[in-house]
């Protein structure tokens, strides 16, 4: 308990030191607010425009969660295929790697034509970017179950379904959650890329519009709000992970593949 308190103090300290250095540099170098505003100005702007920022947080949140849920669902199905079929694994792997390497951002303007104007293109971009880590980690987790354990279950007459839900899936869960932690932050990036291409609301819109109207303090307000949104979503995933894996003795030390 004492150790975790000390850790928290240290973590807050890093943020504080970062903002203090920033503030001091802006002050010492006489940097104009339109080029780089000081943190104090950004925070006071955020306080002044909090309802504007909050109103625009919701559309981004919908796009991020929509994209993430889509990526997790599709990713899981494909991962099961890869883990249980050598043929699917060998056939799809090069395609998946190629799709991952492809800069999705470059496709974003076309998504507008394919998927229309509203929320859909943002969800699709978020899902595409968040998808790959989930597939790879889940497949790896499912594939890493000790074969003896499965043979033992079969020798007891367990069905395929029982083996999957009682052994393989729980075994893979730490891997899956590790990928969720990565993917939720990637989904935030994806949603904002979508909003940069076309939107009339959302934090990506706030950032982009404040940039063209030279309101750099509002722009940073949007960036900070986005960052806070990402951190909160990340913590929610970690919380769910703790609850889902409370039985698991060794949560620490799970290999993260990304």
């Amino acid at each position: 308990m004492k150790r975790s308190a000390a850790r928290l103090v240290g973590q807050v300290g890093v943020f504080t030191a970062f903002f203090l250095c920033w503030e001091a540099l802006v002050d010492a170098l006489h940097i104009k607010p339109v080029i780089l505003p000081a943190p104090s100005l950004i925070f006071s702007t955020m306080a002044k425009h909090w309802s504007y920022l909050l109103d625009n947080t919701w559309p981004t949140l919908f796009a991020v969660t929509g994209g993430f849920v889509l990526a997790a669902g599709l990713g899981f199905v494909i991962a099961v295929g890869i883990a249980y079929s050598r043929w699917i694994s060998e056939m799809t792997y090069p395609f998946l790697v190629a799709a991952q390497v492809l800069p999705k951002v470059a496709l974003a303007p076309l998504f507008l034509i394919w998927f229309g104007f509203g929320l859909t293109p943002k969800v699709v971009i978020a899902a595409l970017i968040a998808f790959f880590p989930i597939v790879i980690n889940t497949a790896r987790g499912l594939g890493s179950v000790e074969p003896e354990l499965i043979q033992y279950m079969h020798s007891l007459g367990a069905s395929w379904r029982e083996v999957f839900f009682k052994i393989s899936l729980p075994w893979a869960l730490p891997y899956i959650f590790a990928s969720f932690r990565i993917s939720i932050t990637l989904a935030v990036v994806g949603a904002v890329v979508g909003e940069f291409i076309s939107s009339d609301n959302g934090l990506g819109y706030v950032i982009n519009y404040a940039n063209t109207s030279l309101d750099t303090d509002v722009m940073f307000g949007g960036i900070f709000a986005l960052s806070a949104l990402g951190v909160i979503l990340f913590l929610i995933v970690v919380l769910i992970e703790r609850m889902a894996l409370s039985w698991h003795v060794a949560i620490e030390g799970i290999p993260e593949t990304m």
Partner: protein
Amino acid sequence: MIIRRLFSVALALVILSGPAWALDKVTLRLDWVFGSEHAPIFLARDKGFFRDEGIDVEILAGEGSTVTVKLVGNGNADFGYAAADQAMMAYAKGLPVVASAVILQKNPVAVIFPQASGIKTLQDLYGKTLGVPTLSVAEKQWRYVEKVNHIDDSKIHQVSLGTGIATMIEAKKVDAAVAFFFNDGLKVVSDGTPMGWILLSDVGLPIYSTSLIVSEDTINKNPDLVHRFTRAFVKGWIYSLSHQDEALQTFLKDNPTVDPKYSALKFPEVLKLTQTPDTEKNGIGYSTQDKWDAMQKALLEMGIMDKGVDVANVFTDKFLK
């Protein structure tokens, strides 16, 4: 004796190479990627108009006027070619930049549409889908035009667009869009669809457009450089007006990857925007206090600027002479 001869040889070399080291090296940051709307600038460089004024200019592509005014105001670029309204906004936000020549006297932002749509007036947009670039100040300009023309906003189906407006029109995802007529509008024309447009400046938006800008700091420290640069820059435009084809060919030679058909369509339209009764009387680049005042009034009404500035600080005609 030998030493003296060596010395005179060295002296001769220095004199011969004189202009090279005497040139002022400056950077010019444009508003956007190289297009034929910049042809007179390439012409001025290639024909030596800048060199004649003792300047070695490096032309850099831009990423929007917003970025250009920041770079010039911050001293990262010596000169910029950017929208006049952005320069005024920068000045109001504490980044003093000054327009020394207003090249595009009319704002190229327009409502663009295929001719087949039958749109003739703004009212014809009722019931149609209009793409509006919500991520740029063009949206605010359109809202202002809607207001002064008493357009009922709710009768037009408006969707937000970003880049690639021409593609959205060609894909028939929108019936019309708010865009630079000479960029997206003529891009569609060059792909084979006849287009029409209504310039926002013809329906009540009194604003100047792309201008040569420089920081107040540079004007104070080196007014002579600003004078020489502005003169060479404007000379490129004057020459291009009477030698359109030469200017276009110079640009295409310098930028072989740019589509020549689209460039040729665009260039004469761009040149038209440089000429008004003001410039016929006083020369290319000339702007008036009255029009800057009207522009500021519109920007304040649009809510793009929250406080006014003394417009006499934001522009000057004195370097045009």
